[in-house]
């Protein structure tokens, strides 16, 4: 499992006068570990708490047959078990292809 639990907040529209228990214009709408990342340029929602090894499996990638970069930095396979993504991360999952 990875890191801290994230608290997601949403700013209230100024013309809404809800009977809120929160005096501030910031309203807590939920506590979530969900983050949005880009995987090979495709948006995916996932849990911040799940390590890369589990996420790859969920996304149907075989970790032994791909190589990973996050935000253009190489992530060695040995780190998959402990590597957790952050919201907005850009993940590249690459596999062998023909080349010249």
């Amino acid at each position, binding site marked *: 499992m990875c890191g801290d639990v994230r608290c997601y907040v949403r700013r209230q529209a100024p013309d809404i006068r809800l009977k809120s228990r929160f005096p501030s214009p910031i309203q807590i709408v939920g506590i979530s570990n969900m983050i949005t990342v880009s995987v*090979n340029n495709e948006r995916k929602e996932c849990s911040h708490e799940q390590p890369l090894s589990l996420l790859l499996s969920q996304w149907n990638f075989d970790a032994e047959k791909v190589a990973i970069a996050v935000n253009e930095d*190489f992530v060695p396979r040995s780190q998959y078990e402990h590597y957790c993504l952050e919201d907005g991360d850009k993940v590249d999952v690459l*596999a062998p*292809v023909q080349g*010249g």
Partner: protein
Amino acid sequence: MTTSESDKWTLYGQTFQSRLLIGSALYPSPAIMREAITASGAEIVTVSLRRQSPEQGGGEGFWRQLKEMNKTLLPNTAGCHSVKEAVTLAQMSRELFETDWLKLEVVGDDYNLQPDPFGTVEAAEKLVKLGFKVFPYCTDDLVLCQRLRDVGCQVLMPWGSPIGTGRGLMNPYNLQTIRERIPELPLIVDAGIGKPSHAVQALELGYDGILLNTAIAQAGNPVVMAGAFRNAVNAGRQAALAGAMPERQTASPSTPTLGMPFWHQQ
């Protein structure tokens, strides 16, 4: 006289017989790729990495075929436009292909895919420090080649002409100058080779090998063309070892003039 069987060469400590390095892309089918690679006699095959969806099987089919051929792999960084992209892709390649060999490409111009000389040197220096055995694809510039040598590249791969053009050796003078000024390193003409005659010319100039892909993969019959290139590389190498006659500005008869008939003193 060295025979082609005993005329081996060494790249980063590995010895090879064939002086033809071949790409694995652009063939009409995987089966033709296999046949062409076999017919070429090449022992080193270039590969790459790209995004693939799980539905595509992670490139498994292609990868399995290539592994069965038991060739030495040379992963490339084709398409990278920055040092960071090239270094990251190199690290990913090393893990997946289990080799520290790397054909370094840093694109400087999209129009003719001309390598970025500054980025190539910077990336090569970083990669050598990271333990890579770098095969830099570069332009035919002597000083660039010297810089690449100085940062630790033990093989240099200047282009013949831009990738996929098939225009052959655009500047034989530059290539020859590099050969003469850097006699200590293996030199490979990479890119632009279109015909077997271009391969012969490269080897005749004293280059140690050639790297090509499109000339075979996009030929009318890739398998037959692979055989033609195999023969061309051998012919060029034999010619280089034999030593060509010096060029002359004027004609010189080959048949003896002594005893020429029909000539009489007036």
